[in-house]
């Protein structure tokens, strides 16, 4: 018997048994949503809250409004364990499920993002990478199916320098200052280097690079050099997983002031601060969402889901962690895109191509954020055919030993400089891959 027929047989049997079990027949076709998560593996502590936030917001829409415009949402997760091979398998497994297939994919890993770049173009499924992945995908002319709201690593690097300048009393005072970058030695960690080099040339500060090999448990030599020899004025960090807590502890060991130590958003998870203990107090991190657990959206999730025992997280305390809020934000971007698409194509399940059309016109305004109870939690996002990033703003937060506190307003990166860099890099990619950039009129 062929494998395919065997599979069909098993699926048929499963469907029949499910029907016999008395599952209610749906009145209307539901919208399938595939979610690539990592609830297992070495990075699970950061992946679980994200997955819970994503699932809770989707479930909230189902429980409160019966889905989007009457179309129920049907969420299926696939566990990648942050492993690229598994991630690709998950994507291929989920992409054709439901009546219209996966409306968008959020791979939650830079490695999986790169592995899917070609595939999403062929499958016409938008790839939404919120705060990770290829920064130059902000150029929507070369990357019609890749979207990077709300921020990119290059933007993050610029925001960090922007913040340091404001601390030092203006860009002019950065001349001669020493800024070091401690980064995870992978595609992810290397993303900000070009931007920082460019800025160092423009603003006249000295820039030092410190690669940390995966997984980042051994940083003694790095921090001895930072703390004793170079003594930079500020240290930036592009770290991941266990590397974050290790770096903070090493910084404390060499006496580097934590309030001059600024991490990117992936170095700003609650789960990474707790193991560092008191050493983490005063440490700063960029966040592309704001922090807190008492926004309207959290209250609704608690009253609609957790009060009825339907929440995804194991306890209600988890709702409001930084990673959890990011999960909500990703779900919000996707569901708002679905709404936009439905307004154009009618209230039924949307295909990936229709969602890509909607992502090109996505506009999550301040008013809309107020309606969903996330005013102040997220920054408004407006995309266009050519601009797949939006404003790209982030804010600086500081760890007080128990939770993150926002200590700055939304900081805007230098969009003109970034846009020129995105376009240059995207053009090189287009040339290499033989892509003709689309016309964005």
């Amino acid at each position: 018997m062929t494998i395919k027929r065997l599979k069909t047989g098993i699926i048929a049997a499963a469907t029949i048994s499910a029907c016999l079990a008395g599952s209610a027949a749906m009145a209307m076709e539901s919208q399938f949503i595939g979610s690539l998560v990592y609830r297992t593996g070495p990075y699970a502590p950061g992946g679980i809250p994200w997955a819970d936030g994503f699932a809770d917001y989707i479930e909230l829409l189902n429980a409160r409004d019966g889905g989007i415009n009457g179309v129920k949402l049907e969420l299926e997760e696939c566990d990648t364990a942050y492993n690229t091979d598994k991630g690709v398998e998950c994507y291929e497994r989920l992409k054709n499920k439901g009546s219209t297939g996966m409306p968008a994919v959020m791979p939650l890993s830079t490695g999986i993002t790169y592995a899917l770049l070609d595939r999403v173009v062929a499958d016409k499924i938008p790839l939404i990478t919120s705060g990770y992945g290829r920064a130059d995908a902000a150029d929507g002319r070369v990357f019609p199916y890749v979207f990077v709201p709300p921020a990119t690593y290059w933007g993050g690097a610029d925001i960090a320098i922007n913040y340091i300048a404001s601390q030092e009393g203006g860009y002019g005072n950065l001349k001669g200052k020493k800024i070091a970058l401690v980064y995870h030695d992978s595609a992810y960690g290397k993303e900000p280097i070009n931007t920082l080099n460019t800025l160092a040339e423009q603003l006249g500060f000295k820039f030092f690079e410190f690669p940390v090999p995966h997984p980042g448990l051994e940083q003694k030599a790095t921090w001895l050099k930072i703390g004793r020899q170079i003594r930079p004025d500020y240290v930036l960090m592009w770290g991941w997983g266990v590397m974050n807590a290790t770096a903070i502890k090493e910084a404390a060991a060499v006496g580097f002031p934590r309030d001059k130590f600024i991490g990117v958003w992936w170095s700003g998870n609650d789960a990474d601060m707790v193991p560092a203990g008191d050493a983490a107090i005063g440490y700063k991190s960029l966040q592309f969402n704001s922090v807190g657990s008492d926004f309207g959206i959290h209250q609704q999730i608690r009253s609609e889901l957790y009060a009825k025992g339907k929440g995804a997280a194991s306890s209600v305390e988890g709702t409001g962690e930084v990673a959890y809020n990011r999960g909500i934000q990703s779900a919000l971007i996707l569901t708002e895109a679905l709404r936009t698409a439905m307004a154009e194509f009618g209230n039924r399940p949307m295909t990936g191509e229709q969602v890509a059309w909607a992502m090109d016109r996505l506009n999550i305004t301040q008013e809309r954020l107020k309606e969903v109870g996330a005013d102040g939690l997220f920054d408004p996002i407006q995309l266009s055919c050519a601009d797949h990033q939006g404003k790209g703003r982030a804010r600086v937060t500081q760890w007080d030993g128990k939770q993150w506190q926002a200590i700055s307003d939304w900081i805007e990166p230098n969009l003109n400089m970034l846009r020129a860099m995105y376009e240059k890099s995207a053009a090189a990619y287009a040339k290499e891959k033989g892509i003709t950039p689309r016309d964005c009129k």
Partner: protein
Amino acid sequence: MLYREAGEFKSTYQADQAILTIRQDRWFMWAMLAFAFLVIPLISSEYWLGTILLPFLILALAALGLNVLTGYAGQLSLGTGGFMATGAFAAYKLATAFPELHIVVVILLAGLLTAGVGILFGIPSLRIKGFYLAVATLASQFFLIWMFNKFGWFTNYSASGVISAPPMSVFGDAFVTGPYATAEAKYLFTLSLVVLFALMTKNLVRSNIGREWMAVRDMDIAAEIIGIKMLSTKLKAFAYSSFLCGISGALWAFVYTGSVEPLAFDVNRSFQILFMIIIGGLGSIMGAFLGAAFIVLLPIFLSNAPHWIGLNIPVDLISHIEFMVFGVLIIFFLIVEPHGLARLWQLLKEKLRLWPFPY
């Protein structure tokens, strides 16, 4: 009854030296090839071709390469991931520097470059043996990955250190890389290469080179005394093994994922390939394929199985169950047959000869 050599007389040297001497084996092999080339592309979905069979074939090729080095020549290596990365980056540099080169030429040249690198890292094998050699090859693994990360030249100065394959076709519109390549084209292209190299390897290990490798594996001092040159024999094994690993890495980067970062070939990949040949069977061509099937296909089957039978369990639980069942199965197979799945296959064939009247 059905499978036996009685009545099959060989009247030429050619027939006597054939790879498959029993007629039924030949039929089986032709049937397998016909099934793989003709039937599978027709009946399989894109998911099966592009996500399950493609990585299986590519990793089987890498396992074949490592099996030459470890299984046939007895040189334990943990550098497979590094050699695959070398193949991938060499193919990328060649394809971007000379866009007019044909993909087959690019892949073969990438294999040859990797063979050169393999020879370089094989030199320590002349002085160190066994587990110590494993550590020396581990150094090559870390060095190569570090090198591709460190020097921008290898990635054409891309900001993230990621390489991506330009669209390339075998002929006309038959693209095998890039977004418009169909899963069928990718599968058939990879399958052809893998079959070709498997045949080449099979013949090589039956030739005098292969016999030298096996002599070195079984007892290097004895081999040296009967006149086998250690230097050239060991380096040949490193070269050919790296050649296959390089090709497999190039296929992984170009045909399977399309874009890779060096971390895709980290030390875990080396271990994965090593486990393939240990479970599949050291010193066996069949073993490389069986081992790759076990390591690649079984986890996918285990993570899909609860869904197929209609069970609705959380994904993290599925992942944990998958780990446990997979671990138990590895232990089970190693207890039942320490010489790997290939040995089980052989036992099956021996039993089949006597069937249905065993004595």
